[in-house]
């Protein structure tokens, strides 16, 4: 017990000095428990491989170049889909947010199509486009689109009318009001929508790769499942987790925080 406390003390001191450590150290006991469980062989090794097996497998996949190729494929799909989704979603959201009639009309439709969910589109997309890149891109665009549109609209509507009126009475043109009042006011919401959309898009990509299955991390995992290689599945899961962790906490979360601090004031009481 005392040993545990002194370890905790060290941990507290080191993370106070290097906060980045706090993102890595917690995984050490988890991996230790995992290694211990695998070593005990309560579950057969085919079902639960140890960390060392997984690292060896990851090294093998890296060495063969499969992992990097598939990873590049997945990331490229996500990037293309997300960019296209945003390019459609933000103007659409601005239009719907500005226009009361368009909002009343399209809101139920947007909600309904969001509720159908990306993955439910896969079968009909397969009928339309076959097994291929178009299907996957469509799914990701679709997934990214709705959270961004809905959040853009919400953000634009949450900007207080007083602010718009103030700008208007000071002689600002509608375009200036849009670019200097409404859009900055909506920016925190847009970014939140983007973060959610990418989160959903990422999952949709995995599902699409599992089902459509030509290449990518999702394909890697499901192919490994067919071959019964648990190590490869675990490698895939870890890659997915680490990658999204990096994207989310080092890229998206800081952007969200920054815009919240910079522009969030507009909506604050």
């Amino acid at each position, binding site marked *: 017990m005392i040993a545990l406390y002194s370890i905790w003390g060290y941990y507290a001191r080191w993370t106070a000095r290097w906060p980045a450590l706090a993102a890595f150290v917690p995984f050490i006991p988890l991996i230790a428990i995992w290694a211990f469980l695998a070593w005990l062989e309560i579950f057969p090794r085919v079902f639960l491989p140890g960390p060392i097996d997984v690292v060896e497998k990851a090294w093998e996949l890296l060495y063969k170049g499969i992992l990097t190729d598939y990873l590049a494929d997945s990331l490229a799909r996500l990037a293309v889909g997300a960019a296209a989704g945003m390019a459609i979603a933000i103007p659409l959201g601005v239009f719907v947010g500005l226009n009361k009639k368009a909002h009343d*009309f399209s809101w139920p439709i947007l909600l309904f199509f969001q509720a159908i969910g990306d993955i439910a589109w896969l079968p009909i997309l397969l009928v339309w486009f076959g097994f291929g890149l178009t299907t996957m891109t469509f799914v990701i665009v679709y997934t990214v689109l709705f959270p961004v549109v809905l959040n853009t609209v919400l953000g634009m509507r949450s900007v207080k009318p007083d602010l718009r009126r103030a700008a208007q009475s000071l002689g600002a043109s509608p375009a200036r009001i849009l670019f200097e009042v409404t859009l900055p006011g909506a920016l925190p919401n847009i970014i939140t929508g983007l973060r959610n959309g990418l989160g959903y898009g990422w*999952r949709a990509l995995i599902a699409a790769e599992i089902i459509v299955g030509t290449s990518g991390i999702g394909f890697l995992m499901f192919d490994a499942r067919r071959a019964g290689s648990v190590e490869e599945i675990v490698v895939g899961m870890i890659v997915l987790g680490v990658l999204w962790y990096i994207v989310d906490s080092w890229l998206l979360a800081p952007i969200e925080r920054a815009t919240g601090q910079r522009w969030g004031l507009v909506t604050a009481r």
Partner: protein
Amino acid sequence: MSADGVTFSPVPYARTWRALKFMAPLLLLVVLWQVVVTAFDVNPRIFPDVPTVLRAGWSTIEDGSLAAHVGASLWRVSVGTVLAILTAVPLGIAMGVSRGVSDFLTPLFRFFSVLAGIAWIPIATLWFGYGFGAITFVIFNAVFFVVAYNTLLGVSTIPMPLRHAAAALGASRWQTLTEILLPGALPNIVTGIRTGMGFAWRGLIAAEMIATNVGLGYMLFLARDFYRTEVIVFAMIVIGVIWLVLDRFLLAPLERATVERWGLVQQS
């Protein structure tokens, strides 16, 4: 939540009117769909017209297969979600009680809530075989980590003075738990449940396409094998309607009610 949460509108039929206004664009969309399909003479294999879809839908209702698929899907979602909530909330609160422990465990939970759902399908099917076990596991996973993480977050955002005040006034540990920690974290817990169920629902559809022989996802995928586009479209509409009803009439009001009732704790 309770009866006093219901607001009675002074305008008669205001709710019906609002529902009609909500339905109108969707009905218009259906009309548009029919017009486009007939005007351009779209191949029914690519996109069927409205009567065909309705007929296909009616036949699945008549032979009871729709009820079986919907029942199986909803049963899996309920079992997975209830199990996840029952385990995630106590765990989240236990972890959130101490600042150090919660800081320590946050990265772990973020990592696993990222993986939530679909990424577990391959390994779940290997562990549990194709069927109920694997799918419920995927749903459990999707909800569990999101709810636990949100509970943790909720507990750690309760202002320390509140806890100190309760302790100074002689609250027992049990009282602190039931009167400070649980109510304070409740808005976050409910938000977590809503987000988690959103992931779970998508995960369910994906898992059912891959790993079972009954359920909405399977219905979709089976129809694809036979190129029965009208069944696909019907199943998509069913999926959309179920989630819309679940989210708008159950989860969103629940979230709003808890935030209104308990959300005060966070404002300070």
